[in-house]
């Protein structure tokens, strides 16, 4: 499943990435394989998503979040 299939406040573990170019940037920001991520909320007008990992918050666009494959813990 991908990141956006998580419900609000649901946590999961990153296992893979669909897009290499996006992956290289996500890694730079610390979204590594095995990282525990939590889906927090959608932006008011959609399009962006509020994600937390390792105690930090990050905003991802729809396509960025879709490219992250996770598995439920």
């Amino acid at each position: 499943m991908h990141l956006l299939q998580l419900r609000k406040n649901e946590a999961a573990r990153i296992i893979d990435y669909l897009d290499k170019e996006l992956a290289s940037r996500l890694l730079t920001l610390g979204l590594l394989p095995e990282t525990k991520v939590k889906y927090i909320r959608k932006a008011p007008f959609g399009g962006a998503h509020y994600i937390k990992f390792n105690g930090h918050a990050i905003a991802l666009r729809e396509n960025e979040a879709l490219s992250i494959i996770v598995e439920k813990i």
Partner: protein
Amino acid sequence: MSLKSQIKAGLIGNPNSGKSSLFNNLTGLNQHVSNFPGITVDKKTGIVKLPHSTFIELIDFPGCYSLYPNSGEEKLVVEILSNPKHPDYPDFIIFVVDATDVRRQLLLATQIRDLGLPVLMVMTMKDLADKRGMHFETGGMSMTMGFPTLLTSNVSGEGLDELKDYLFAFRKVLIKGAKATLEDNSWGEDFHLKPGESHHNPAFQQLIVRQAGTDSKNQQDSAFFYDLNMTEKNIVAQLKDKLNAKTDYQALIQIHHSEWLEHLSHELKDEITETKLQIGFKSIPLQIDETLQRYNKFSPVVNRFLTFKIQKGFSITDKIDRLVTHKILGPAIFFLIMFLVFQIIFSWAELPMNWIESAFGSLSIWAENILPGGWFSDLIVQGVIPGVGGVMVFIPQIFLLFLMIGTMEEIGYMSRVVFMFDQIMKQFGLNGRSLISLISGGACAIPAIMSTRTISQQKERLITILITPLISCSARIPVYTLLIGFAVPDVQVYIFNARGLAFMGLYLLGILMAFISALVMKYVIKAKERSFLMLSLPEYKRPRIKNISLFVREKVGAFIIQAGKIILLISIVLWALASYGPTEKMDQAEKDAISFSQENGLGEEVTGNLIAAKKIEASYAGHLGKFIEPAIKPLGFDWKIGIALITSFAAREVFVGTMATIYAIGSESENLSVSQKMAADVNLTTGEKVYSPATSWSLLIFYVFALQCLSTIAITRRETGTWKWPIVQFLYMGVLAYVGSYFVYQLF
């Protein structure tokens, strides 16, 4: 390492790492802003004073996540750090890390170390880390990582003295050279260290020495955190002789980015591209492998030397964000804040603006009285002083707006705004970050356009630059105020004042047109690269006055320097155009005015004003106005308005002053105001009033849309690097203005 007397340190870190605060703390007011050569990225440099009246130079590099850059600013970091010959290539790096989030930031630290640059790692925000119960064993971490690591707090100032001792030690080693330092037994005593401090440990000193020795020949090939794989080794081996690189990794970075690195020659670029194809060098998969390998290498170090209690429940930031980024409350809070911001700007700025205006008015009168007369004093009294005054009068509004933007940025609110509105902005070919530039445009387009540098995708940045001048800036306010007086009667509409509503309508019209234009450009302009959001939402923190005041100083400074010089220059040119004309005609104009006033028995002051009015008609500016009259007649404008349109290019509010001159209002005159005189003006051919509501509305629309600001044109030229975009900007806004005014005029 060559012996040198001046040591340059580069300050590098992720965005929001506390880098700017550390820079401000280390340099105080000993800092200045210039440009990196050949590129419009602000270069902040400062002097750090060290013990024994020594110092080092500190360069504040733009925030950066990795040597595989995203934005233009990040690219600049790579451009400089990959090129040992670059004039800004530092001698060592102060790497700034937010202590509450060390792991991912170490990625860049290790990359920089592998370039062959000595690193001193400074973990800031110790206060926050302490609060969260985090504990760092900096000694062990330093020894394992191979570079000294220390903890500081920008709030309490803790650790800053220790940091300066380290800087002193780095300076010492780098000046003496690693070898000489090792041979000199007494060097430790020079360190200005207090006994018992951790860094008194000789092992720590060794770390500095060992790093400083990195670029000596024998250690050239060492990679510290990353072992190049076969493909990488292969390509580096083939090309290294041609590349100017200190380490294999530095060569590798040059190869990765050969397409856009400016310090590589065209032939070399072609050769690298060819070799890449031959070997099958694929940049992105290699980047991913490298990044993962680095994490694997330093993650155990972090796990070993950093301990913290796992937090339960929700942090304050979580609680604030639940409201501030809420589906409905979030945007509501944002619009409320924006309403308050502009309310404050309009109400608080008025008084100081009046002071500035009257101060320059008095200065002009005073100068007129003490100067001997002649063209030179006219230049000072009518050209220079009003020109400088015209720049100064905007400062209160610009100051207030950036004070508030700076505070919101410092607290951490702005990134939430970007998060909330990214989707809407994306629909228009913009980026969430564009919104901050557009808000800044409410004060002045100059700093607003400069602030687009944080937008990484070129297309989004370009569109933001192109539409920003459509947001009504502070220079339009006096023009709107004057013209609305003619266009709209002073009546109440329900609970609102009709003029107030018209004023708001003009603002909204500008905003609306900005978005429509963006939408069109989205389909016309082609994108070269992908667009990303991936925005870090930092924890909220208490704003620090020092950071905000430096932010405001920078923005206001940019306005004064970038816009100020052009406004002043244009004011002088326009003064000359309005004061001089073909001698015959000028003399004739004066004679006519005098004889007219004698026939009608006018007083001395009125006569003087009449002469001025007749003279401006006969001047070069008057000729220009009459020359363009046929073109602007369909809009309902006469040659007088034509003159004002031209003079508005200094800054739009000059319109009001020009009108005062044309309608023969001396500065001392109290009998009739500009607006009364303008209201009384009658068109000679039709017998109708010149400032009919139709003409006034037409003119208002013109001022909303037209790019009548040379400073903006200059700044667009500078930020886009070509004349193409300022010309496009001028033309599209000009067409909007002309067509808009034409329709409005014909409508009436």
